[in-house]
Every structure is written in structure tokens, then in C-alpha cells.
């Protein structure tokens, strides 16, 4: 299985690569042709969108989505797939998934640490914004934890940082595409 990681100049792309390599995937730079394209999840929204545009990944991802080719967005990667985000004074997203990202208003922000996702166990979160979308498929403490829409899957948690449980999540996703 070929996995393309859409880097945007910041963030820990390597941990996502390592997680997929451990599952036996091959990492490719070909975003359009990969079996799965991953939009990883560390950074600030404005800089990340600008980084995607510079690399042409915004167009690549829209094309993939239109073709029904699988895309995984992690954390900020989920939020960038929405229509827009409140972050950095308001930034337009890729618009693959209806909805927007809004600033968390309860508890300590950033929301950092391991939290239950429905009844699936605890995954690792590190975020200040969260999705408001009709496409939510899992929740964690009232926060949207997973989104599915067309060929797009987004997770607000970091499966690549969630130990064995996170590895299992990515493996299931890969198996569902095989």
C-alpha cells in the first residue's frame, strides 16, 4: 500500500510516516496516485494552508476527493478539510467537508492529553479548535473526535501518537481500503 503524506513545511510529519511504515506501508511523494493521502496534524492553520498551496497539495487533495480517493486528515488536517476555521483570525479550509472549526471554550485550552473516544478507549489529543460539522462519527467529551464524508476520514486525535490503540486505528483504516 502506498501512502502519501502531504507536508506543509511545519509539524511532525515523521511520526505519521513512522506509524504507516510500521504497518508495512510504502511512503510516496505522489499525492494524486497514492492509495491513501494523509493530511497531517501539527501546525497553525494559516501557515499550514499557505504551505499546502505552495506545494500544490490543496489542488491534489480536491482532485482526490472528487475522484473518491481516500484521504485521512489528522487533527489540524481534519480542520483544514472543513469550509473554514476560526483560527488565526479566520482561514478558509479546503472545503471537502461541510462545517467549520471553532475554538474550544471549556476546560484548559489547548486540550492536551488522552481522552476516551466513545467506547473505543483513550486516544491522544492536542488541540485548541474542534470541528462543528454534520459529518461527525465519533465524539470525545463533547468534542468531535472523528469525521467521515465521502472518501475523507478525519480524526481529531493523533492515532500516530496513541500507542497500540492508535496503530490499530490506522491498521483498520488501511485494511478498509485494501
Amino acid at each position, binding site marked *: 500500500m502506498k501512502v502519501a503524506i502531504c507536508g506543509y513545511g511545519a509539524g511532525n510529519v515523521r511520526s505519521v510516516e513512522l506509524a504507516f511504515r510500521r504497518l508495512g506501508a510504502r511512503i510516496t511523494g505522489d499525492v494524486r496516485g497514492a492509495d491513501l493521502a494523509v493530511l497531517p496534524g501539527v501546525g*497553525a492553520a494559516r501557515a499550514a494552508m499557505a504551505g499546502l498551496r505552495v506545494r500544490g497539495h490543496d489542488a491534489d487533495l480536491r482532485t482526490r476527493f472528487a475522484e473518491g480517493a481516500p484521504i485521512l486528515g489528522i487533527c*489540524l488536517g481534519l480542520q483544514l478539510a472543513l469550509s473554514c476555521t476560526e483560527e488565526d483570525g479566520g482561514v478558509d479550509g479546503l472545503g471537502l467537508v461541510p462545517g467549520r472549526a471553532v475554538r474550544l471554550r471549556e476546560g*484548559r485550552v489547548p486540550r492536551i*492529553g488522552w481522552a476516551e473516544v466513545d467506547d473505543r478507549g*483513550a486516544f491522544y489529543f*492536542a488541540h485548541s479548535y474542534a470541528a462543528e460539522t454534520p459529518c461527525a462519527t465519533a465524539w470525545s467529551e463533547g468534542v468531535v473526535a472523528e469525521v467521515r464524508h465521502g472518501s475523507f476520514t478525519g480524526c481529531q486525535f493523533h492515532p500516530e501518537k496513541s*500507542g497500540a490503540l492508535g496503530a490499530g486505528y490506522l491498521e483498520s483504516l488501511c485494511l478498509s481500503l485494501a
Partner: protein
Amino acid sequence: MPLPRLIPCLDVAGGRVVKGVNFRGLRDVGDPVELGAAYSDAGADELVFLDVKATLETRGTLLHLVRDVAERLAIPFTVGGGVRSAADAEELLAAGADKVAVNSAALERPALVTELSAALGAQAVVVAIDAEGGRVRSRAGTADAARDAVDWAREAEERGAGEILLTSIDADGTRAGYDLELTAAVAGAVDVPVIASGGAGNARHVADALQVAQAALLASILHEDPARLCTLRDEVRELGVVVR
């Protein structure tokens, strides 16, 4: 709220994990790659790696070591030591860190926190504060920063810090318990998560720290026996703190 976290800390100097008492008398306690992997396997919630000599020797952090440690981890990984610019921080993230911790450089130039937060997002920026008698010390505890710890924590948050890692130099390595008073003061002054550090000697100390902070840093209490993390977690749970 997410679950309280237990975070092993690797203080690294010269490529080895070291530990001192009150920041002095550093001794070798192991290999960072092996210890990092052992903690990850033992169920650590995160791992912190502090290159304690980077600031003193004004050299860049040990990128290759960060790379090797990250290779073996599937948990969040914070790296600190010698970060002076967003470019330094991005190098660490590229090597496999998820967050960077800044200390002396942020005290010397507080705008660094703002720059890091804009480039990496607040969730990737940890401001580490070393405090003695409630006052901030810089350069691995060797210099007086002429600041109050609570005030500096508040400013760091305003500038975009995503977490405060608060180390009590008074308590560091003593195994006599965390500085709960200082930790509570800082946690009460900011809305970002606070990681308590310095002084863990037993499960009660850790459980007490997790009543006032969102995470507890663990070093001396673990280094001679990484498997201690598993038993410590069970003991903390028995004391009524829900941990992962």
C-alpha cells in the same frame, strides 16, 4: 478534561541520560534511546527529552539523538534545550519531536514564544520554567532571571504557550514531593495545562501533584527501574486518581 498524565523525563547531556539533585551533581543513568523505548512500552503518556547542556554550551540540540529516540516511540514527544528560533524548533519537529520546550531563550527574548506559537501552533509550544523560592532561574538554574514564576507563566500563556512545564529547583531530585504551593499558584494563574516537575518520591506525591496540575513529570523516581512506571501508575490509581 483529558486524563492526568504521567510523563517520564530524560535529562540528556553528552548523549546520555543524567540526573542531579537540585540541578547539580549530574550522574549517568542510562541510554536515552533505550530508556525512551522502555517508557513508551511501559505505558508512558508522553515523553520529555531535555538537552540540559544545550544552553550552557550554546550549541544546537542533539538532532540525531532526537531522531533515534523518536524512531522507537508511538507516544507524544517533547524536546527542549537550546531552541532560539522558529527554525531551531522546526528542525526538532522534523527530527520527530511533537512539541518543543523553551526556557532560557524565551526569558531573554519573550517574543520567541509568540513566534513559535505562530509557526507551530500553541499545542506544540511548551514554556519550561525553573523556579527557586518562587523566582525564575535561567540557564539550567545557574542565573537569576529576575522574574516571578507566576508572572512569567502568565506572560508565556499570553504570548501563545500551549503548556507550562514548571520545575521546582528546590524540590528537584530530592524525592520529597512536588512543590504543590507553587504549582497550584501557577495552575491557578493560567488556563493552559501545567506539568508539575521536581520532587516525585512516591505515588502519594504524584497523586497530590495531579490534584493541582494536569500532568506530573517523573525522573529520579523512575530512572533506575523503568518498569517502576507501571507499578507507580497502579499505586496512583489506588489513591483515587483516574489515569490511563
